[in-house]
């Protein structure tokens, strides 16, 4: 298998599992909120995100 394919697979796996959530948050923050002080650090981001994400129906039968 070629390396770019593997890299794309790895990226997909990280995106699927939410492993890259912090990177995505940083990218979004830089684009839209760069003038509003500092972004959350990794730990604080993970804490707020997890609490918020579970306020709804997540799983089916």
């Amino acid at each position, binding site marked *: 298998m070629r390396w770019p394919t593997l890299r794309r697979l790895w990226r*997909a*796996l*990280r*995106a*699927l*599992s*939410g*492993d890259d*959530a*912090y990177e*995505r*948050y940083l990218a*979004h*923050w830089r684009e*839209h909120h760069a003038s509003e002080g500092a972004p959350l650090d*990794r*730990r604080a*981001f*993970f*804490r707020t*995100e*997890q*609490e*918020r*994400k*579970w*306020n*709804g*129906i*997540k*799983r*089916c*039968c």
Partner: protein
Amino acid sequence: MTVPVNYTLRPQTPLGMLMWFGIAVLGAGAVGGIALSRGETINSLWFIVAAVCVYAIGYRFYSAFIAARVLMIDPTRATPAERHNDGRDFVPTNKWIVFGHHFAAIAGPGPLIGPTLAAQFGYLPGTLWILIGAVLGGCVQDFVILFFSTRRDGRSLGQMARDELGPIGGVAALLGVMTIMIILIAVLGLVVVNAMKHSPWATSTVAATIPIAILVGLYMRNLRPGRVLEGTLLGVALLLFAVWGGGWVDHQPGLREWFDYAGPDLALLVIGYGFAAAVLPVWLLLAPRDYLSTFMKLGTIIALAVAIVILHPDIRMPALTRFIDGSGPIFGGKLFPFVFITIACGAISGFHSLIASGTTPKLLSSERDMRMIGYGGMMMESFVAMMAMIAATVLDPGVFFAINSPAGIVGADPATAVATISGWGFPVSAAQMQELARQMGEATLFARTGGAPSLAVGMSSIFSSAFGTGLLAVWYHFAIMFEALFILTTLDAGTRVARFMLQDMIGNLVPALGRTSWIPGVLLTSAVVVSAWGYFLYMGTIDPLGGINSLWPLFGISNQMLAAIALCVATTILMKSRRARYAPVTALPLAWLVTITSAAAWEKLFSPELRIGFLAHAHDLAAKLAGGAIAPEKIAQTRQIIFNDHLNAALTLLFLVITWVLVLDTLRVSWRAFTGHVRPPLSEVPHIPSRLVENWVRD
């Protein structure tokens, strides 16, 4: 009327024409082969070929028709994710990633258990319903609800019911979601309890998943924040170790007794666990458990598919059994309507409409992706149900019935049980069952109702043949752990959601109870929810007929009722958007669902058969009680069962009433729309052109 997307509704080239003709012939041949085969055995490859061809044709032609003509998908329209992109809830996401999330959310234990139970009718009825129900019903429901919710900023099913039908529809939908949640958790809890009953190996392995999840939770929160993949990998390794460790525990006299419980005790433990999980912070138990179960689920399902394709074992169950007359040992009731109630997830599942109108619509980057995610996601789930059907029917029918029949039907001791089952024409011997139990590392496999143990036996025989023999017991307990893991996830998450809904409802009356941060309020509402499902669960474990017999049909009826609610909303919207011509696409599955739900509810209420009709069963017990035919020590329990029968009957009646209220409301609003009065008005958001279309290169 214009067709905004270039969906090619029929093959354009002679080669394409030829190819689809070939697929159609192959599919028809496979389905015909399955339906008409009356030999000793039939190879499971036929099932795979039939399923793949039916799904391919359904996806290629029917979903294209729905996308182009019925819904008029419009990729130039900006999706909620694009318009509200907040980097949190609303995020335009690659379609394969959304597909992964959506599939992981809709595929739970339902499609594995339903087909296993329905295999008592033989392989044919369940298989046909899984294929036809999915392509014409379930996939359509998921697809159209995803579409309508996306066009309404990702609003939930309940909100859409209120917006499009009015307040009555809204209340009925909310009540429906609440009750289905309670019944679902109770019946899934019962499945886990029956799998762990007097099995130190299974119980210790399942118990170990709790500290493992907590460990992973701590890892992802404190040691390496947000490193989901690392944490999950660590957790999966520990889980595999726990499967092996459970076998070790089982062989340690003095230790194994700590994990050896009867059904009712296990039920109390599960109830205590459910309460703890609902009030503990999510990061500690709920979220890490969900990561683990999602990985295990996807991994195991893929492994099972690969193993079945490599191995393609022979199906030993006959096409139809004598139990289509309603006398089946696993659950009572005739083929019609009970096969359609028993297999809900896998053919059509109302629960999916909650996901399709929840997180998924907020992630779509283009309307074009909906066809694959909505229609295609359900196709995958249906395929999981097909694999469960194969795993159940590769077992010797005698063994299948010995595992799944409750002691109250076939007799409590092995000799009586095998005699009864062999008498039905499914030969099985006590020695054979003893040997099988020994291979699986269990004390006994008789009367392990609920579907999980028989599925685990089927899976372990497939896995051990495909990936190395000699590890039957480990594979068996791996399968049990895998099922228990995501059943417990559903149990935690469901309890929590039901608690939120309850807090939401009573928060209007007592504001303090609605606050999710006020600890006494959280404890109280959690206790209410847990005792509601806990009651049904505990009653299920002491029910002499096996609680599955009464709880699974209740679950099926409530799930199909929810699907009917979703299709009512969809049909109403089609009528109100002046597309009455295409309304049959959702109205016909709706009519079928209303027919089977009503028929099943009616039978559960008024059938004179003791194992079907709740009221008949209650009257029978009451007469016995009055006549003094009940032993004195059983009197209290009998009173309890009579009360429980009445409760089940009341719930069934509630489902029936909710369904019909919704249907009549749909007819009312649709008729007004048909005569030109669109009221309440359509709640679709106006068209805003997408800016992703020009500058976004799709990968």
